[in-house]
Every structure is written in C-alpha cells, then in structure tokens.
C-alpha cells in the first residue's frame, strides 16, 4: 500500500496548494466569480480534511501544508486570478490521476471522482474544456 499512501500524499499536497492559491485569487475576484472561488476554497479544505483522515487511517503521517506557495506567474488582476485557479485545478486533477493507477479499486474510483470534480472547476476557470484532463501530453500516443 506504499503506492497508495504516496499517491494520497500527492493529492493532499495539491489540495493544500489549491487552498492557499484560492486565498490569493479570491482577493482579486468579485461578484459571482468571488462566490465561486469561495465555494471552491471550501471544497478544497474539506478535501484536505478527508485526505488527512485517509492517510492517517493507513498508518502514515499526512504531509503538512507549506507555509506559502509561490504562484507560477504574478497574480495581480482578476484575469490572472482566474488563470491561477485553472492552473491549481489542473494540478489537482493530475494528482488524483495518480490515485487511479493504484491497485485498490475503491481508491481508483475515488481518484476518478476527484478528477471529475476538479476538471469541472478547471474548465470553469479556463473557459473551455480539454480532451485529456490530468494527462501529460507526453504519455498520449501520436
């Protein structure tokens, strides 16, 4: 189950980064977008709590959240805040994709559900859908 725990830790750390990032993004958003960001922030906090419990239950120590995360680009406008939210969600989708590769069927299913939720949020912030959420282009066959 070592693979399962490390995949869960990776998801937890992506969720922690999202919680931090939505705090940054929210400060630049207003109206319906702010409300959506607050809802997403809450959902990510709930996911962190659930993942923490899942990791603890498997006898491991949940990796703590970092004190701060550096955004991949300057976040100084509503547009940049939305791009950051999309980017964070893409990271969460990719982390859940790792869970889909473990042997445990229940965890695979949990990972696939997590991908769907985050992919819907990513599409909202990006403004478009993509064909292969979470997949690195390098693993797709030509």
């Amino acid at each position: 189950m070592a693979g399962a725990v490390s995949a869960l830790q990776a998801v937890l750390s992506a969720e922690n980064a999202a919680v931090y990032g939505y705090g940054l993004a929210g400060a630049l958003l207003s109206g319906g977008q702010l409300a959506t960001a607050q809802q997403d922030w809450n959902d990510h906090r709930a996911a962190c709590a659930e993942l923490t419990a899942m990791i603890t239950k498997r006898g491991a120590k949940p990796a703590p959240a970092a004190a701060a995360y550096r955004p991949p680009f300057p976040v100084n406008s509503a547009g940049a805040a939305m791009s950051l939210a999309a980017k964070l969600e893409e990271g969460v989708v990719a982390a859940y994709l790792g869970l889909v590769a473990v042997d445990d069927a229940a965890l695979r299913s949990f990972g696939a559900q997590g991908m769907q939720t985050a992919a819907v949020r990513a599409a909202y912030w990006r403004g478009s859908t993509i064909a292969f959420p979470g997949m690195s282009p390098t693993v797709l066959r030509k």
Partner: protein
Amino acid sequence: MADTPVGPEGPDGFEGPVTAAGRAGLSRRRLLAAGTLAVPLAAVASCGAPNPLAGPPGPSPEVRTLRAAIAAEQALIARYRAALAAHPGLPGSVQTFLAQHEQHLSQLKSRLVVPPHVTPSPVASPSAPASAPPASASATQGSLATAERSAAAAQLGRLASATPSLAQLLASIAASEITHAVALGGGS
C-alpha cells in the same frame, strides 16, 4: 465474438467454438505473439493468475475493457454527428466536444495492440443511435449531456479491470465527458 485479437479461445472457453483445423492452424509463432501480449496484461490484472500451463489465455480483461470503451466512444460520436446533422444551429462548443471525442477514440484505438499474424478484425461497430435526436435543439443538447454523464459513469465501471495505464486514460476521458455535460447544461 470472432474478433479476439490474441488467440482463438482460452482454457476456460471464453470465446466461441474453435474447430480442430483452426486450432491446428495456430502457428507457434502466433502463439508466442499472443503470449507476449496477453500474459503481462493478465499478470497485472490479477496476481493469482490461472494455471499458466493451461494454454494461451483468451482476450484478457484488459482487451475486453478496451473494446467496450472503444464501442462506447464510437456510439457517442455517432450521437454527436446525428445531433449536428439534425440541428446545425447547435452552439459551436458541440463541434468542439465532438472533436475531443474523436481524440478519445484515437487514443483508445492506439492501445488496442493486435499481435502480428492475427487478422485484425474490426472492433464491433456501434449500432446506430437508438433513436433520432429530439426535435428541438435544446432537447438535443440535453440528451447529449445525459449521454456524456452515462458515458463517464460507464468509464468508472471499467477502471477495476484495466491496467493502471489504461485506467488513467479512461478516468481522464471520463473527466472530459463530465466537463462536456456541465457545459451542455446538464446540471450536476
């Protein structure tokens, strides 16, 4: 089921009747080719593999899972084409989603490895969409959203019988399908 890619039948008779001539005609080379494809996949899918001395296995669960996913993707594409033919005024995003489904299909097909010297039989073509698209464009859009949701749910049902790599592809396709459903106005 004459479309088995790895050999005529398995020890437990998964697949249809095999004639003595068919069995005798199975060259050693083909057996080896079938074995190299099927054994690693089966080993991943189930650690307690069946008796390895019992002969070449039938199509692995992996291959069946892949074929089911391909057939489902083809059915969805047929549904989109029928919708666009009946309602050319559907939003441009519908065309985008169709193109993304074509990408899904091509990735799935690229994983269907047919060993050398085995005639690749076509994947069962999907039956025509059960019914014509609804008369109104908005109802058609709703029916596409429903079809996307069922397709995504079916992918989740295939995860347990897939290798890790195929499971990831199926889960990614399912996530894409859910984003289509939401964009089409399918609620949650």
